[in-house]
């Protein structure tokens, strides 16, 4: 066989093998690709408040009754989210022995986001339930503080650090 023919034959074989290899590759890898995606949602609890500080000023009194007129503030809003079950929101004051009287109440609680307890009086530092029955929900409520002071308490200023916590029931 002439060298020229051998060369051509080799070239044809090379092309054939290359095409076969390409077809084999295409067949092996196919026209689809797979990916496994795992999504995990762990228990998450979030609580937030819109105002870092607020002031209540008692500046009027009922002369006939001989008492001061309470001051109220509902500017604060509390927000919470949990995907866990059987949670509640508690509240605690930093003031162990207050001179005046400060009360707290949840107003306009998002439906099915929890059950507010009756008005709370901050007369110690004990943690108290504020909203119960919080399960897999998100919600909000207005925080209404009411401050009052007996005439005998005189004038003055008190600071409370109020801490809201979402916790297990």
């Amino acid at each position: 066989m002439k060298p020229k023919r051998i060369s051509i034959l080799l070239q044809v074989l090379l092309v054939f093998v290359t095409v076969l290899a390409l077809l084999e590759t295409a067949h092996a890898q196919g026209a689809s690709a797979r990916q496994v995606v795992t999504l995990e949602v762990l228990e998450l609890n979030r609580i937030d408040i819109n105002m870092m500080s607020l002031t209540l000023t008692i500046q009027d009194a009922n002369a006939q009754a001989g008492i001061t007129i309470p001051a109220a503030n509902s500017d604060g809003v509390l927000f919470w989210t949990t995907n866990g079950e059987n949670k509640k929101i508690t509240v605690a004051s930093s003031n162990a022995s207050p001179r005046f009287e400060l009360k707290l109440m949840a107003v306009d609680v998002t439906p099915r986001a929890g059950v507010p307890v009756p008005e709370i009086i901050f007369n110690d530092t004990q943690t108290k339930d504020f909203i119960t029955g919080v399960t897999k929900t998100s919600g909000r409520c207005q925080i209404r503080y009411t401050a009052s002071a007996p005439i005998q308490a005189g004038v003055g200023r008190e600071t409370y650090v109020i801490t809201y916590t979402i916790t297990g029931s």
Partner: protein
Amino acid sequence: MKRPARLLFPVLLSVYVLAASSESVQAQTYGSDFHRVTVTVATITLLQTNIGSINLSITGSSVIAGQDLMTVSDQSSTLLWGTNSSGKKVTVRTNLAAPKYSLKVAAINPTSGTAASEVTLSTTSTDFLLNIGRSSGSCAIRYTALALASQGTGSDVHTITFTITNQ
């Protein structure tokens, strides 16, 4: 100068004789033959992801107090493709028939073709990339998971299948 001139003639003659001889060799043909070489290129479609598994986890940083919706996104993986056929597209589907949470996917910055709109994954194949005919390219794969606080905790495992198909 006369001697070199006299030598020039034999040299030129020798060159002419050699050139003529070479031409004569090339012109000598004792026979010829030919054959036909056919190269066939089949339709080739290749599709591959650079990462086999993706983990999405909704953490505290993606949760906002007062909002029911919690989300997380991942754009760490890439889809690579090659096709020598026109009129092709890439579709996507999941094997999970009833996921607890919603999972969306979108093609980001494709080097060729057109990204379809972000789709919520289901077991029905949905367009992911359009007009990718006769090209090789890549795009980022963006997954976005949506979970509601009211759905509680849990996990979903999807096997996502990307497919090149006729458009």
